[in-house]
């Protein structure tokens, strides 16, 4: 590798110096607090070594919220720079770095862990399992993601961030134009966390196919679980394309290969092709789980079964298949020819059909339902108009000849923020509010949540609607400043105000969480929303082993039917004489240590420090070797302990 670390950047830039100081101070404070309150052992035993899907889910959630904050700060910086013409708040180089890290972090290190948080928190509980199929692998997935994210985040203070865009197209991302370590950071951070993502896809696919409680047929699965199944299929077949694209680019940069150079027979367009073979399915990977959450939330808060369950499942599956056939719409302007563009334009428009079916089903679910406007439902309802606009502008972009006009303008920016924020982020927030009591055993304060909701929603439209207009007025993406007199000033200024409003919304959300940790209402029933699916039959938070006895499922929304008296509620409570020792996986520190070695490897490759790579390689091999010869991986929870836990919860029968 040929990096020229900009060590000087450490001290010359006041903003980076400030961040350095902040990071050191915060780290010292954390170390101090952990030592003072003797929490190191707790941290290691309860979190760093855990293989419990519920705890892994919580860690994903915390990481996602932190990354939402980091990506959000990036966004506010960019909007500040663009608020008025000829601003000098950020220079071009800095602006490039910030839009690159913003996009990369929001997609890979905010949206992905957020959906994985929801997978982990809800899926095993919804299908009546005690953990995922491969709990140890699940821990590896988390730590690979976490340390991959860390690798990208430290680039800002050590050596300089990537600045070739989140799409990282060559030749810009090749050595000739990105000679520093920044692009290496990008490639390695994404490769490392990508291993975790593929593993999660496999893990949940197997969990859903093989670990369902007796009687939980595929046709009785909750729609969120179905959406996870669809998303896992997408992950499984899309992520390898990204891995290949990143690996080839890394070979170009590190070993002087010519896959994507113009010289020596390479073709930069091939990177773009590979990137979007992953990239388009990726947008569906992050939206389908949100669809699943909306189905759960809307049916729960309307007190009705989801309208058209079968068509919902069919739509999910159709999207996950056709979603693989649309990727060229991201580079219509490459000019592959009318035949290619026509095929992919039509395939893209076809996707809007199953999506539309889902929207109508949600509306019909609400129709004549007894609607309760709690926070999860508010976010779900807010999603519908937002996504309708985003979908419509998507179809406009899918008209290949018209896309020559819209492509890479602010119209495109407005489109994908509308679907990503209005779809994925709203969905994940709905899910977070919905399952929060299940995770932590208390409810989030409703009033502060409403403030957050209105600031964020109004801010959203104020921020992004003007960007459609800006796109038509000719403003292109990724420009760091613009002259006055083009008519762009007013819409840009309004847009920045909207961004600040969303920032205030986020602050309210943080306030809400902190306030509720202190004063939140406890969830003693385990079923605060009068839910329908299996997770609400458990106490909040669920015991370590989830189900003392695995229930036999006799219908769709079985818990709801039991509460209506159509099924026996006793099926969901453990009987003393039926209890057996419970088989559980043991904790392990190795997933964390293994991922640390990957982090060292990534850092070594970024800066071309060979000894570091060799040592990390040995560390990784050693961890894998130890795992291969490990047989003591599980244990049994004795019946006494289960009886103790369950009777303390007041659930034991007989």
């Amino acid at each position, binding site marked *: 590798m040929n990096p020229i670390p900009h060590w000087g950047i450490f001290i010359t830039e006041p903003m980076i110096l400030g961040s350095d100081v902040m990071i050191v101070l915060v780290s010292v404070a954390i170390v101090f607090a952990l030592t003072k309150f003797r929490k190191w052992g707790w941290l290691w035993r309860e979190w760093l070594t855990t293989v419990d899907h519920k705890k892994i889910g919580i860690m994903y959630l915390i990481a996602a919220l932190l990354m939402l904050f980091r990506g959000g700060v990036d966004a506010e910086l960019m909007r500040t720079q663009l608020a008025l013409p000829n601003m000098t708040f950020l220079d071009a180089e800095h602006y490039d770095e910030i839009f690159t890290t913003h996009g990369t972090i929001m997609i890979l290190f905010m949206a992905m862990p957020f959906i994985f948080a929801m997978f982990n928190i809800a899926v095993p509980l919804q299908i009546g399992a005690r953990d995922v199929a*491969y709990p*140890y692998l699940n821990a590896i997935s988390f730590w690979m993601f976490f340390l991959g994210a860390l690798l990208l985040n430290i680039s800002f203070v050590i050596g300089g961030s990537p600045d070739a865009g989140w799409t990282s197209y060559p030749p810009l991302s090749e050595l000739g134009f990105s000679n520093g370590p920044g692009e290496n950071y990008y490639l390695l951070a994404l490769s490392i966390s990508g291993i975790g993502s593929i593993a999660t896809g496999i893990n949940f696919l197997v969990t859903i196919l093989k670990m369902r409680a007796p009687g939980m047929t595929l046709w009785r699965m909750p729609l969120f679980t179905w959406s996870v199944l669809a998303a896992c299929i997408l992950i499984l077949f899309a992520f390898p*394309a990204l891995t290949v694209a990143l690996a080839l680019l890394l070979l170009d940069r590190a070993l002087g290969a010519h896959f994507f150079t113009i010289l020596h027979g390479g073709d930069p367009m091939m990177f773009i*092709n590979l990137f979007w*073979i992953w990239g388009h399915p990726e947008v569906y990977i992050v939206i389908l789980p949100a669809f699943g959450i909306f189905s759960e939330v809307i049916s729960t808060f309307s007190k009705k079964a989801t309208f058209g369950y079968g068509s919902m499942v069919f739509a999910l599956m159709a999207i996950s298949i056709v979603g*693989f*056939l649309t990727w*060229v719409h991201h580079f219509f302007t490459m000019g592959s020819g009318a035949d290619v563009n026509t095929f992919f334009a039509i395939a893209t428009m076809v996707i809007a059909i199953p999506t539309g079916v889902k929207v109508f089903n949600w509306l019909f679910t609400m129709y004549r339902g007894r609607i309760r406007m709690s926070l999860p439902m508010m976010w779900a309802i807010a999603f519908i108009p937002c996504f309708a606009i985003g979908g419509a502008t998507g179809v406009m972009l899918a008209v290949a000849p018209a896309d020559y006009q819209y492509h890479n303008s602010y119209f495109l920016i407005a489109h994908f923020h509308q679907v990503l924020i209005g779809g994925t982020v709203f969905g994940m927030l709905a899910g977070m509010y919905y399952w929060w009591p299940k995770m932590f055993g208390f409810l989030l304060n409703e009033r502060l949540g409403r403030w957050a909701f209105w600031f964020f929603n109004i801010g959203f439209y104020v921020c992004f609607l003007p960007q459609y207009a800006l796109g038509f007025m000719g403003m292109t993406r990724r420009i760091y400043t613009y002259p006055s007199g083009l008519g762009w000033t007013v819409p840009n200024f309004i847009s920045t105000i909207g961004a600040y409003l969303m920032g205030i919304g986020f602050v309210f959300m943080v306030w809400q969480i902190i306030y509720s940790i202190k004063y939140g209402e406890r969830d003693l029933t385990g079923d605060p929303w009068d839910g329908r699916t299996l997770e609400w039959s458990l106490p909040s938070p669920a015991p370590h082993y989830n189900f003392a006895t695995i229930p036999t499922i006799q219908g769709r929304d079985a818990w709801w039917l039991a509460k209506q008296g159509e099924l026996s509620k006793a099926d969901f409570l453990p009987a003393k004489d039926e209890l057996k020792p419970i*088989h559980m996986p043991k904790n392990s520190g190795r997933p964390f240590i293994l991922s640390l070695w990957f982090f060292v490897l990534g850092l070594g490759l970024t800066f071309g420090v060979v000894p570091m790579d060799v040592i990390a390689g040995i560390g990784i091999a050693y961890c894998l070797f130890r795992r291969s010869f490990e*047989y003591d991986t599980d244990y049994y929870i004795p019946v006494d302990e289960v009886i103790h836990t369950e009777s303390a919860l007041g659930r034991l029968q007989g």
Partner: protein
Amino acid sequence: MSGQHPSTAHATPSFPWQYVIGFILSLVLTVIPLWLVLDHVWKPTPLVIGILLCAVLQIFVQLFMFMHFTHGDGNGPAYQTVILSIGFFFAIIFIGASIWIMSFGYQVQ
């Protein structure tokens, strides 16, 4: 939960010949294309065909030697066969469509 966890099979292992042979085969099938390219043995068209052939053989080695393509666990359908068939389907589409998409380059040259 025994029986529920697909990962915990505790049978005493016999020597894994299948893996060793598979490993050697996969190395050989990787070295051949590398050698073909580095030593400029063939002209471009046969070269591409040769590489593709090795790649396809490699897929079969991976599937049958390592990935237990046809094995079930006696506990429900052999889902992996379905999933891997979908994989084949997509692989063919990705490769075929990529050739279709990228072939515009020839008109420019």
